[in-house]
């Protein structure tokens, strides 16, 4: 065990795999540039002893351990150290374990990183979780949020930052400059393809890093449109295992479009006709070509009411959004706890598809 300066961020890493523990510890120490004090334990008994000796900002706990696995130990920690922040790490992400861990109070449930970028993302998440020295503003960790929500917040606040996204297999960056999304990069992809691909990810880690100029600016236009388009593509195409690039002409008819086809055509030629963004209280935050704000605010209200009425008595969960497509036009209304958004757009005439 190491005695470290108590003013540094304190972590306890628990993993029965000694090699893995040593590797993770070394990498995180390196990334922290000496700002973290990391202690380790290879079983729950050692971990409890460590915690008794000195509290930590966060326990990083391996899910798969013999005798008492991570989930059982998490349950125990909930009783012995209520309020202790625990981050679960696993080599095999499965939804039931993730849900159990989060229900038991785990702060984060993350996949064990295997790449340098993955370790950086893990470091960023843990660093944010453990808090920082005195500075203005609030700090905190958001759990189970969607990337769209994070982007919305950054854009609405007209901030400049880089959203670094990481999953086990994929990394990417989304650059935000003064509230506009100006560039996205994901492997060899950049621009809209990269942005939509990253926003279609269903889980992973993210960190917000200070802005620096990207290699180039590959995105322009209203962020609301980019986010709504990403949401729509994800909804309509993300779960289509058979969707393939530029598929048959059936794929171009009446919403049966594949993500790639859409990205290649619509996203570049779509005309936005109207945008209205309001707070949940109905205060207009942004509007563009909105002819009757009052009517649209009323529409928000009615849609929300009807959706609630429809879902009553069913396990449908919270209402998110509705879209309506007819001919060449589309209207989307998104209802979120913090805002309401309407985007009306028209599609260009689609060229014949000869694929």
């Amino acid at each position, binding site marked *: 065990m190491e005695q470290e300066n108590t003013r540094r961020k304190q972590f306890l890493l628990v993993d029965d795999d000694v090699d893995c523990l040593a590797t993770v510890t070394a990498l995180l120490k390196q990334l922290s540039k000496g700002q973290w004090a990391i202690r380790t334990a290879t079983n729950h008994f050692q971990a409890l002893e460590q915690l008794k000796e000195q509290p930590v900002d966060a326990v990083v706990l391996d899910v798969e351990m013999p005798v008492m696995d991570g989930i059982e130990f998490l349950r125990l920690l909930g009783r012995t150290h209520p309020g202790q922040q625990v981050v679960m790490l696993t080599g095999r992400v499965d939804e039931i374990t993730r849900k159990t861990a989060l229900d038991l109070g785990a702060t984060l449930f993350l996949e064990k990183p295997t790449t340098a970028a993955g370790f950086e993302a893990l470091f960023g998440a843990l660093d944010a979780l453990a808090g920082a020295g005195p500075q203005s503003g609030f700090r905190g960790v958001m759990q189970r949020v969607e990337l769209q929500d994070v982007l919305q917040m950054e854009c609405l606040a007209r901030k400049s930052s880089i959203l670094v996204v990481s999953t086990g297999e994929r990394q990417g960056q989304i650059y935000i400059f003064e509230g506009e999304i100006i560039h996205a990069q994901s492997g060899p992809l950049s621009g809209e393809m990269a942005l939509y691909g990253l926003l279609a990810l269903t889980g992973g880690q993210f960190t917000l890093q200070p802005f620096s100029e990207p290699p180039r600016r590959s995105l322009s236009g209203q962020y609301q449109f980019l986010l709504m388009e990403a949401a729509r593509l994800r909804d309509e195409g993300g779960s289509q*295992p058979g969707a393939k690039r530029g598929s048959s002409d059936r794929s171009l008819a009446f919403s*049966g479009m594949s993500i790639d086809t859409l990205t290649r055509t619509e996203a570049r030629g779509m005309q936005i006709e109207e945008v209205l963004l309001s707070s949940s209280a109905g205060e207009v935050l942004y509007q563009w070509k909105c002819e009757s704000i009052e009517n649209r605010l009323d529409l928000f209200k009615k849609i929300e009411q009807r959706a609630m009425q*429809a879902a009553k008595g*069913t396990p449908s*969960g919270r209402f*998110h959004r509705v879209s309506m497509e*007819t001919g060449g036009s589309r209207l989307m209304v998104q209802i979120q706890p913090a805002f309401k958004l309407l985007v009306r757009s028209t599609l260009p005439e689609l060229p014949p598809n000869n694929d």
Partner: protein
Amino acid sequence: MTEIPGNFVSSRLPIVGLVGYTVHSEDRVLEAECLSKSLYPTSSEHLLTTLVQSGRALLPTGESAAQYCWIFECVRGYVAARADGACLALLVENNPGVQMLRIQETLRDFVEMAKAE
């Protein structure tokens, strides 16, 4: 209104992820089926019927065919509305295992049926 075959949806089953459906004429429910044991048939019908009516009332499309997609945390309601007033509403689980291509195909065929007449 173009006649809708009684087995229009049932002949396409099973569709993974489809938990219920309703078929509507301009003014009434012609058929309602709940395919999930975790939902009451009346709740499923109520949900889909309300979505159909809400789409018509709040987001009218005149005499054009339209498709609506209502997204909730756990389910989605897809509504294909034809120009003749008939609607097909499908209640679908909100998870990646859903056979979306078949869902979309069913909605599209429902609309195309009227056009073919």
